[in-house]
C-alpha cells in the first residue's frame, strides 16, 4: 500500500484546502466542491443549481465568458464546473507555472458571476437540449426513473439534478443571482490539489485569490430526506429503440454509516469485481443476456442506494430481471466465501493504491476523503478498516438492505409488450 502526504489548511473565510505536493509531475490538478447542489433548488425552481453551475464560467463582473475561456485555454489549462445533487464540483488542470492565474479565474467565476440575461438564455437553451437528450436515452431514463421510485419523484436524490423541462423554461437571471447569493458559501467549500507546488506557497496563493470572498453564513443543517418508499415498478416505453435498459434498486446507507464498508465489499463481489462480479458471471457470461450488468453502491452524505443496471434485448427482459433477482437472493441469504472476502479486500486495497497513479484521480480521491470526513490518515487506515469486514458483517448488511422484496424496478426501451414483475414477486425456479 502506498501512502501520500496530505495536509489540511483553512483560509480566513473558511475554505478548506487539502494539499498533496508531488514533484514527479509538472502540472497541478484540482478537485473541489461547494455544497450548493440541486438539493438546494427551491420548490418550483428545479434546475436552478444546474443553471448557476453552467453560468459560472459564462461571464463575471469584469470578464465575458469568451474572455474566461480564452484565458484558461491560453494557458493550456482546464477548469469546469458540474452540478450534482449535493454539491457543485469543479476540476482543473494547469502547468505549475500557471497556478496563481488559474486560481484567480476560479475565484472570479465563483465570487463574481454576472448572470447576464443573454448568457442565461443561452445556458437555458443548452439545459433544455440536455433534458431532451436525456428523454431519448434509455439508460438515463431507466436510471432516473429508478431513483424517483427509490426516493420519490420530487425528493432530494430522487429528482434529476438537471431539473425538468417545465421548470427550466421558467428560470431567470434573478433566480440564478438569488441562488448564488444564498447558497454559495465559502465555509462549505473544499479544494483538493495535487502536483508540483510548495504547500505554503499554494495556500498563500489560494488565500490571496479566494480568502477575501465573504459569503452569507448558512446553517449547514441536514436536509429532510423522505422515508423509504415501497418497492414499485415503472416502464418507460420507447418502442423505436433496439435495447431495453433496466434498473433495479433500493435504499442503502449514507457514506458515514458503519455498515458502508461491509456493503461496499459485498457489492463489489456482487456486481463489480472483474467485469461485474457475480452478476456479470451469471447474466452476461453464463446466460449471455446482457453486454453490461453491474451494481453500483451510491453512498452520499445523507442517504444511499444500490442501483443494478443492465442492457438487454427486449425479448430477454423478463429473463434478465429473473437472473438478477436470483443473484440478489443468493447474496442476501448466503455468506461470501472466504476466498471472495479475501479477494474483495485485496481488490479494494489495490484499487485505492492505483487511484493515486494519475493526478486527476488522486485529486478526486483526496477531495472525497475530506468531503466525507474520512480523516487525513484514511489511506493509512484503509487496510485496517478492510480487515474488520467479515463474511458475517457482509451478510448482516445484505440481509438488511438487499432482500428482493425491497427492490424497485424501472425499464426503458421497447417494453410495451413485456410482462414485468417486481423482483420481490418473482419466484426463482
Amino acid at each position, binding site marked *: 500500500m502506498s501512502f501520500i502526504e496530505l495536509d489540511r489548511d483553512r483560509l480566513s473565510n473558511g475554505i478548506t484546502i487539502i494539499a498533496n505536493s508531488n514533484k514527479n509531475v509538472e502540472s497541478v490538478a484540482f478537485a473541489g466542491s461547494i455544497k450548493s447542489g440541486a438539493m438546494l433548488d427551491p420548490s418550483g425552481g428545479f434546475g436552478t443549481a444546474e443553471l448557476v453551475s453552467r453560468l459560472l464560467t459564462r461571464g463575471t463582473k469584469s470578464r465575458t465568458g469568451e474572455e474566461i475561456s480564452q484565458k484558461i485555454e491560453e494557458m493550456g489549462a482546464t477548469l469546469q464546473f458540474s452540478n450534482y445533487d449535493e454539491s457543485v464540483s469543479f476540476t482543473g488542470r494547469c502547468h505549475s507555472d500557471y497556478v496563481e492565474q488559474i486560481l484567480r479565474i476560479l475565484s472570479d467565476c465563483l465570487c463574481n458571476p454576472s448572470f447576464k440575461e443573454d448568457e442565461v438564455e443561452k445556458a437555458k437553451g443548452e439545459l433544455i437540449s440536455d433534458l431532451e437528450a436525456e428523454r431519448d436515452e434509455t439508460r438515463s431514463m431507466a436510471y432516473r426513473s429508478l431513483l424517483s421510485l427509490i426516493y420519490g419523484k420530487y425528493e432530494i436524490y430522487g429528482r434529476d439534478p438537471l431539473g425538468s423541462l417545465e421548470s427550466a423554461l421558467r428560470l431567470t437571471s434573478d433566480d440564478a443571482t438569488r441562488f448564488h447569493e444564498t447558497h454559495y458559501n465559502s465555509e462549505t467549500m473544499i479544494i483538493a490539489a495535487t502536483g508540483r507546488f510548495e504547500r505554503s506557497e499554494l495556500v498563500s496563493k489560494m488565500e490571496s485569490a479566494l480568502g477575501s470572498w465573504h459569503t452569507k453564513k448558512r446553517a449547514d443543517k441536514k436536509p429532510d430526506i423522505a422515508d423509504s418508499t415501497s418497492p414499485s415498478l415503472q416502464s418507460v416505453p420507447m418502442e423505436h429503440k433496439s435495447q431495453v*435498459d433496466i434498473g433495479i434498486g433500493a435504499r442503502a446507507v449514507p457514506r458515514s454509516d458503519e455498515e458502508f464498508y461491509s456493503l461496499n465489499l459485498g457489492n463489489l463481489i456482487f456486481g463489480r469485481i472483474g467485469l461485474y462480479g457475480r452478476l456479470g458471471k451469471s447474466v452476461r457470461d453464463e446466460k449471455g443476456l446482457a*453486454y453490461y450488468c453491474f451494481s453500483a453502491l451510491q453512498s452520499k452524505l445523507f442517504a444511499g442506494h444500490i442501483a443494478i443496471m443492465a442492457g438487454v*434485448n427486449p425479448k430477454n427482459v423478463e429473463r434478465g430481471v429473473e437472473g438478477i433477482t436470483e443473484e440478489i437472493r443468493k447474496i442476501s441469504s448466503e455468506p461470501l466465501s472466504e476466498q471472495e472476502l*479475501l479477494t474483495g479486500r485485496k481488490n479494494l486495497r489495490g484499487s485505492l493504491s492505483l487511484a493515486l497513479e494519475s493526478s486527476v484521480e488522486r485529486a478526486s480521491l483526496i477531495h472525497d476523503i475530506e468531503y466525507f470526513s474520512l480523516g487525513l490518515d484514511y489511506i493509512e487506515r484503509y487496510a485496517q478498516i478492510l480487515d474488520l469486514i467479515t463474511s458475517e458483517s457482509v451478510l448482516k448488511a445484505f440481509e438488511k438492505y438487499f432482500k428482493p422484496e425491497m427492490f424497485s424496478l424501472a425499464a426503458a426501451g421497447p417494453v410495451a409488450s413485456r410482462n414485468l414483475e417486481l423482483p420481490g414477486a418473482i419466484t426463482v425456479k
Partner: protein
Amino acid sequence: MSSTFQLASGIEELQLENGLKVLLKPVSSSNAISTFVFYRVGSRNERPGITGSSHWCEHMMFKGGGKLGKGDVHTLVSTEGGRNNAFTDQDLTAYFETLPKEKLELALFIESERMTNSSFRPEEVASERQVIISEREGSENYPSYLLREEVFSMAFRVHPYRWPVVGWKSDLQNMTRGDLYEHYRKYYHPNNALLVVCGNFDLREGADLARKYFSDIKPGNETPPREIGLIEPEQNGERNSKLVRPGTLNYVAAGFHLPSILHEDMPALIVMTTVLGGWRGLIGFSADRYVPRSNRLYRKLVSGKIVSDVNVYFPVNIDPGLLYFDLTVLPGVALEKAKIALLSELDALGDTLPTEKEMQVAFNQIKSWHAYENDGVGLQAQSIGLMEIMGRRSLADDLISRALTVTPERVSAVARKYLPEKNRTSSTYESRA
C-alpha cells in the same frame, strides 16, 4: 510554460527471435506497472461477412484456454487490486493490466497465455454472440451512434473503415466459430504483436520476464502485411443523407477524408482542428468532461445559439481516416441552419488566416494535453503502444513538436485542401415525435 514531457524518452527496445517487439519504460516514481499487448488487427483487417470479428475475438480472449480458465483473467487481476480490460479499434486490438509494481510477472503470464492458447469453445462463442449483439443494440439506442455509422459507411466505399468496429448485425448473427478462430490464428502471434511495459520495474528484470513468458511462443507462419491492399479512391463530390427517426433532438454530422497519421500534413491538420474545435489530446481517453470553448466552432455555433454541443474527432489511423464533426441542434433551430453554419465556418478557415491569438491558444492546448493525456503509467503505456502501431513510438512527440511550428498560412492551406465540399460526407438526423 516550459513543459518538457516526452512520451518516448527512456524506452528500451527488446526484439525477441519470434518477432515480438517489447518496449520497456521504467518510471521509478510510480507504485504500479502497466502492460499493454497490442495486436496489429482491427476492423480494417476484416471483410464483408466477418465484420466485427476482431472485436468478437477480443471478447473471446477472456473465455479461457491453456492455463487460464474462463474468467480467470479478471479474477487474477482483481485479486491483486489491479485493473484490466481490452479494446478493439479500426487498426488494432489491445489488452492491458495495471497492477501493483511487484505483479509484473502475473500480467506477462496472462498475456502469454492469451497470445496462443485461447480455446474459442463453441458454447462460449454462442453465448458471446448474444452479448455482442446486445452491445451493438445498446449503441443503436443513441442517435449519435447511428449518425456516425451512417457517415462512415457513406464516406468509405472501398476501405474497411466503412463498417463499424462492432460489426454489422447480420454478420454477428451469422459468423461461425470457424470464422472467428481462423481470424484469431491469423493475427494472434508474436510477430504480429507488440508488448509495452511502463511503470516501476527493473529494466533487466522486465526484459528477463518478457523473454521467460514470450520467447517460447512460436511465430506465425507469416506476418500479416501492414498494407491491406484496399485504397479508398479520392472522393469527387459531396455525399449526404438524411435519417428520420423518432426522438427528441436533431443532429448533424460531417466527415472529411484526411491522410494517414504519418502524412506530413498531419501537424498542420492538428492545429487546424484545434483552431476549429479545440483540442483534448491525440487519443482522447483522458479528455474527461472538459469542453474547449475558445475556438471558432464553439463561438459560432454554441455561443451563437444554434447548437448545444459540438464535437470534433481527429483521426489517428494507419490508413487515411475521417475528420468527424457532430452537432446537437438546439430545439427550435432548423437542421439546415445548423448544417450551413458548420460548413460556412469550415470554409471560412480556408479564406481567413487564424489570428496570432488563435495560434497561441492552439499551441498551448496541444502542448498541455500531450502531458495530460499521459498522466499515469497506464495512459503512457497505451500511448506508446498506439504510436508504435501507427508507425513509430516517437510519433506523438514528433507530431506535437512539429505542430508547434505550423504557420497560420499552413493552417489555411490545409483547410482549403481537406475541407472542400467534394471531400465532404454529411448526414442529418431528424427526430420526429
